[in-house]
């Protein structure tokens, strides 16, 4: 048993899992408040990363400014997607909405391939020190930042939904649109805001992933990895999304460890989450924290 490798993979799992959790949270936010499954979530992540990177590289902006600009860009983008693409589809069957976001993801993938190229690009040196020493352990600054940012985002989500006026409005809309509307909440604006927040937070996740590894279009796979995470946690639970993300991140790395040490099958890393997904769907379709959908006639 290779303990140090296991430990390293577990730490990896937690960091990757946090990022899965953040993206899953964005996904759940959109599903909970607008009943739309966003298959283009992964492309949102990549878009945020590319915009920030190209602002840093080709415009020569300092990182923090570029980061802010890319978040503003993502906000506008999220609102536009909701207003132009999804507002006409309100009330349409599930398959139409699913296909619309799938179409969006294909379109975005092709466009980004064209504009930003097919290669992986690394961010230029953003932090002065590449590693920070904490209690004798050398940790990469980018990893540390990703952890801190993830926690900050989660804290902001909590504050927003628990205490702010708009957060309450969004929870009310998610619970029952008609009652929310009759209490004077503008449901259309809440929908647009859900997409805006989701796009912005996806953008943050994209930049963080870009800092940790590199920016490339293949990062969009995170949009697919989100599905196991949200099914484990329950499709409409934000806490569940984070726990699901962590579970899937750790599970992936454990699968790699078991595979590499004992089984030697190869590629377990990428498929294990989907087996878990099927098993969870068979025994507990609404996940650990989701609300069962009870139908009465």
């Amino acid at each position, binding site marked *: 048993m290779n303990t140090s490798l296991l430990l390293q993979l577990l730490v990896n799992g937690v960091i990757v899992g946090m990022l899965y959790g953040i993206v899953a949270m964005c996904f759940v936010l959109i599903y909970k408040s607008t009943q739309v*499954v966003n298959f283009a979530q992964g492309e949102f992540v990549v878009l945020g990363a590319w915009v920030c990177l190209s602002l840093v590289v080709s415009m020569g902006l300092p990182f923090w400014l570029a980061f802010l600009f890319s978040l503003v860009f993502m906000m506008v983008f999220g609102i536009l997607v909701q207003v132009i*693409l999804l507002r*006409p*589809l309100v009330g*349409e069957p*599930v*398959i*139409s909405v*699913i*296909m*619309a976001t*799938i*179409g*969006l*993801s*294909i*379109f*975005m*993938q*092709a*466009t980004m*391939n*064209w504009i930003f190229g097919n290669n992986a690009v690394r961010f230029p040196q953003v932090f002065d020190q590449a590693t920070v020493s904490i209690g004798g352990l050398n940790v990469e600054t980018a990893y540390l930042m990703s952890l801190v940012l993830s926690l900050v985002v989660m804290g902001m989500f909590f504050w927003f939904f628990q205490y702010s006026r708009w957060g309450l409005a969004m929870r009310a809309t998610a619970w029952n649109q008609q009652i929310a509307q009759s209490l004077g909440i503008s449901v259309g604006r809440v929908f647009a805001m859900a997409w805006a927040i989701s796009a912005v937070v996806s953008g943050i996740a994209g930049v963080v992933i870009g800092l940790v590894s590199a920016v490339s279009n293949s990062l969009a796979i995170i949009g*697919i990895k989100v*599905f*196991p995470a949200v*099914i484990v946690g329950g*499709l409409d639970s934000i806490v569940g999304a984070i726990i699901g993300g962590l579970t899937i991140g750790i599970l992936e790395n454990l699968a790699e460890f078991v595979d590499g040490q004992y089984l030697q*099958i*190869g*590629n377990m890393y*990428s*498929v294990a989450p*989907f*087996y878990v*997904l*099927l098993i969870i*769907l*068979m025994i507990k*379709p609404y996940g650990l924290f989701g609300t069962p959908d009870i*139908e009465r*006639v």
Partner: protein
Amino acid sequence: MAHVPNPRPTGDFRVSYAADRTLFKTKNETYFVIGGILLVALAPLFFGGYVLSQLILIGIYAIAALGLNVLTGMTGQISLGHGAFFGFGAFASAWIAGNGIPVMLAIPLAGMMTMAVGMIFGIPAARLKGLYLAIATLASQYILQDFFARADWFTGGTYGSLAETASFFGYALDSDASYLYLVLFWVIVSFVGVANLARTRDGRALVAVRDHYLSAEIMGINLTKYRILSFGISSFFAGIGGALYGHYLGFVSAEGFTILLSIEFLAMIIIGGLGSVSGSLLGAAFILLLPQAMEIFANAVATVVPAIAQGTAYIKQMSVGAAIILFLVLEPEGLVHRWRMMRASWKLYPFSH
């Protein structure tokens, strides 16, 4: 569904149930279909390799899209794994033919094998529907894809496997012209089969499951049985389509059967018309020809704006995504609906309202 006037010719009285259930509603419809089949059958006399290869591919994709239409259009279940079943059919047929069974038999056998696999992956459908089912089929897409890359004995692993050339009583179907007839045969069999399915008890049960599953269950329809059966039927046609595809190319490799193919199949039935038999054919032709039309268009623009030239490949992919979105927003009922409207306005002219 929006109301489309569907006027009958004068004097066409239906006096028995049998007359009301005919496959073709009017004589003209019969002539139209037979004429279409004859035209395709005569195509090798007039056209060269490119047109024939496009016809073959349209036929192959139409068979698979028809299968997905049984699942999604008739039964109302979404599958994001159809491309993987298509691939499974291709590998299965290559494997069966590789073990010494004639290709003509291997194709239906591969369909059966894919049907069995589809029913296994359809088991979650017994409990799930809508979005949850879509996610479950997404998982089956990735699991099957992983299986293709790993099962060396079956698929040749990452190297892919060779599919034998089909032969008919010793006559090798190795040219586009001869293979076209094989594909045409299977297209007719599948389309007549599904058109008939819609008229049977089982077919009506599938539609009932789609329209209101609780009422269907109260009327004595076994939900689990029909949901899994519809997965089976759908994968059977995916398998047939895949087998024909494999033997046409002569070589099957796992790279072609990604989630993108599954999405293209869904796009075909949405653009053609959900639940419509003829729509599957229209949609397959549309999705296959659209990127090529866009390529010609992009090349024409590139002579004026040279910057476009390097983006041709991306424009092709963008056009598929844009077509899905535009059809959903502007014409959710698909090409078939357009066609019905045109026919109605022609029949009712000059009293179009």
